[in-house]
């Protein structure tokens, strides 16, 4: 009986993130449009886009290989698995012990690995430009993320997300400079990883500065839909991750009854909305960087992660 309930909770989370992800992106787009005094598309426009793409036929480049066709499903699956391992409204989900935070980062790394390969598969220069820049961004974003994880793991004594969230809920963590630094570093990484302004522009095409869009330039139809959905999921993943670590309030512990779960769900939706609003505000307020400013931006995130880890190592011995 308990097993069935656990399975149900896990399945519900997986379905929920899938359904919520396009809405979150729609919300961010809407708010950005409103901030620019535009009407903007409806918040459910991403769903319509996905459906439209799914129904269209795929136009495949002549020399596309099997890797190109498999990659969209692979990226989607990997991102989906990663996001379903994150406690959204409740901790201690059934399969949360399958993978810790390092694994989640590595899973996202796999998705990026294959997307970069797919960018090079057709043999066009736009694909190459996207892949090589993505690789450069990743070489800095990943270590920054891992150092942030070190910080969290040192505070919580675990790399397991559920455990970290539990420790963060309990109040004896206190205010820590390291945690503040980790938060800033994590936000910077999240911005870079999700190809948001100022690192990349999610709304651009035909521009030499594009990174993510250049890689997926040759995709169309259902393949593009899968990649878009994976990108939506990734945004949701990072906001959920930040929410679950730094504002873990009202996270339900599994098996504590329906009320806690409903409360947790409402809190989660609120957190997502707040995260989306902040993202839109930030994106509207800043300008896109030159590509070669990005290493400095991410280098700063790396330094913050490093500094946070260092301070923790030191203050542990006080």
């Amino acid at each position, binding site marked *: 009986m308990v097993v069935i309930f656990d399975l149900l909770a896990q399945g519900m989370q997986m379905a929920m993130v899938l359904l919520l992800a396009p809405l979150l992106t729609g919300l961010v787009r809407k708010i950005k449009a409103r901030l620019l005094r535009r009407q903007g598309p409806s918040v459910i426009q991403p769903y319509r886009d996905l459906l439209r793409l799914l129904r269209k036929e795929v136009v495949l480049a002549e020399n596309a290989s099997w890797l190109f066709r498999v990659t969209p499903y692979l990226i989607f699956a990997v991102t989906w698995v990663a996001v379903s391992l994150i406690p959204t409204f409740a901790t201690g989900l059934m399969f949360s012990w399958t993978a810790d935070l390092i694994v989640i980062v590595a899973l996202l790394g796999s998705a990026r690995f294959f997307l970069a390969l797919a960018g090079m598969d057709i043999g*066009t220069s736009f694909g190459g430009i996207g*892949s090589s820049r993505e690789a450069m961004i990743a070489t800095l974003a990943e270590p920054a993320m891992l150092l942030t994880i070190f910080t969290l793991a040192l505070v919580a004594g675990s790399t397991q997300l559920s455990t970290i969230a539990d420790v963060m809920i309990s109040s004896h963590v206190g205010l820590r400079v390291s945690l503040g630094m980790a938060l800033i570093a994590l936000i910077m990484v999240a911005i870079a990883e999700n190809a948001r302004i100022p690192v990349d522009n999610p709304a651009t095409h035909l521009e030499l500065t594009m990174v993510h869009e250049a890689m997926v330039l040759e995709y169309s139809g259902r393949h593009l839909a899968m990649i878009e959905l994976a990108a939506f999921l990734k945004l949701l993943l990072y906001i959920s991750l930040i929410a679950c670590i730094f504002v873990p309030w009202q996270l339900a512990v599994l098996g504590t009854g329906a009320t806690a779960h409903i409360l947790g769900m409402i809190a989660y939706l609120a957190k997502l909305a707040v995260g989306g609003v902040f993202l839109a505000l930030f994106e509207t307020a800043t300008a896109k960087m030159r590509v070669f400013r990005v290493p400095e931006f991410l280098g700063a995130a790396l330094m913050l992660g490093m500094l946070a880890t260092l301070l923790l190592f030191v203050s542990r011995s006080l």
Partner: protein
Amino acid sequence: MTPVALVLWCIAALVAISVLAVTISRSPGATPIIYGASLSASAAVFVVVLLQLVTPAASGLLPALVLPVGLPWLGAHFRLDALAAFFLVVINLGGAAASLYGLGYGRHETAPQRLLPFFPVFLAGMNLVVLAADAFTFLLSWEFMSLASWGLVMTHHRERDNRKAAYIYLVMASFGTFALLLAFGLLAGTSGSYDFATMRTAGHAPAVSALVLILMLIGAGSKAGLVPLHVWLPLAHPAAPSHVSALMSGVMTKVAVYGFIRVVFDLLGEPAWWSGMIVLLLGGVTAVVGILHALMEQDLKRLLAYSTIENIGVIFVSLGLALAFEANAMNLAAALALAAALFHVLNHSFFKSLLFFGAGAVLTATGERDMDKLGGLIHRMPLTSFAFLVGSVAISALPPFNGFVSEWLAFQAILQSPDLPQWGLKIMVPAVGGLLALSAALAAACFVKAFGVTFLGRPRTLAAQLAKEVDRFSLSAMFVLAALCLLAGILPGIAIDALAPVTLTLVGGRMPVQTSAPWLSIVPIAEGRSSYNGLLVLLFTAFAASLAAYMVHRLASRALRRAPAWDCGFPDLSPQTQYTSASFAQPIRRVFGTLLFQAKETVEMPAPGDPKPARFTLELRDLIWGGLYEPIAGAVWFAAERLNHLQFLTIRRYLSLVFLALVFLLLVLAIWS
């Protein structure tokens, strides 16, 4: 018959095979016979030691087998303990795979008589090093292994670069052996006993321990490719035929790691805490420098060789952690770090051999090692490219393959380090953790480049256009290794449990029993802290991907049309416009290269109307080569010039030289005593 004797018989068989090879190597049937025989011998050793490793009796100390050869008062000692058994597994698995690959690849060899005699004897040498239980036998086998591999590097001796590579290799190998000789001399001490068992029980003064550690870092480190002693490796490994490159990169570097572990963890006794710090720093620097070099490379085999340097760095980081923990009596953490190092040894031997086999297959099919002349091979060589893809994913430390598991264990070991009391370590460990994370991310970029430029896109030359899939033996060797990469990635618990006797004898601790963990997940310390289950990750991903594909194809659209590439509306560009390896690495070069390589890009753009071609030149300098080796080489050259006069003396002067030397030595003796 004891297992040691069995293994020794197999080694003797390998030597016999190489004698046979000398006699028959010119006949056309020699290649399959020699490789077939090497394959069976390696497989036999593999089975014997694997049984030895998994049976619980292995943990006990077995008596050494003494053969009455070698130095008359010493004999040759051989012992098969858990550590040796583990490394024998690595060596013979790699050896068997290389032999299998050689069955097919060797047919394209132009000069089999230069290759076949050395191959079995190289395998025998590596086996003997691990089995040796006294310093004399160890050094002798070590030299044996070095010389055999030197002979293999010289296989294609008509190419100028290969001769240079072999020369540098020979110099570095002799230098390394010299350091090892001194290290063992110090270990033997005044008692002068070269038996490992005596060395182990004899106490060593701190100064001696420090000196031995440094000498081992030089001796074993130069063979393994630690920065700054790595310069020979990217020259020599690619110069050999590809299955030998696989052996040298995947296996011989591991023998060097074995030598380091044997002396520093086993013979030297309790380590000092700063020894961990030195090893950590060297490992971290090696990892990042190695992979950055690999990223700048456009020769596929040299890229792989540089990536070997990176992996050696990763292994040494874990070893340094293990030393630091052991010095502070944190046995569990030390066991975790050591297990991470050993597991990475195993994993690296899998995927590096696989990748070199893939590079060899590309070389056979196209005659090219230069990635910028390849491209689009995924259409012409689908099986090879699939195997190479598996290897690339595994070496990039991505789940659910094996490379990820060992890096994950290393990260878990790093997270144990705040409890270390020394300040130096407290600061050093997170810094090295950052380096490790950086090298992992760079490795992923590097292998996106390697696979993407070689196998994806459109063919850049006719050779790449006309490539054909390679033979079945080569393919089966690659696929066996690819399967092992996946298996070690999803069922790492079995391998980690098999490592328990090794960590128990060396650092006196072991990781928790993994096979009893639920659902075959692995647990470094305790389940509340961290756990990972590669099998479930694989199953979930496969399930989600097939579900998505099925749903989309079933419910939405499955229509598909082939059309020219879109590329933002630029039609029919030539394949030369594709990203090459240099252009792929350009952003990373700009971020990291200016500091490390002093990268200089110059663009010559002719004025409008001028028909001259535009030119882009890229200049990279290897600071280590320029700053360390060139001055040494210059000094040696200078000294040689001076000493050259000695060749033109009269007999009387020669005699007086000898006389003076004699008097000088007598004087020294007189003053000494």
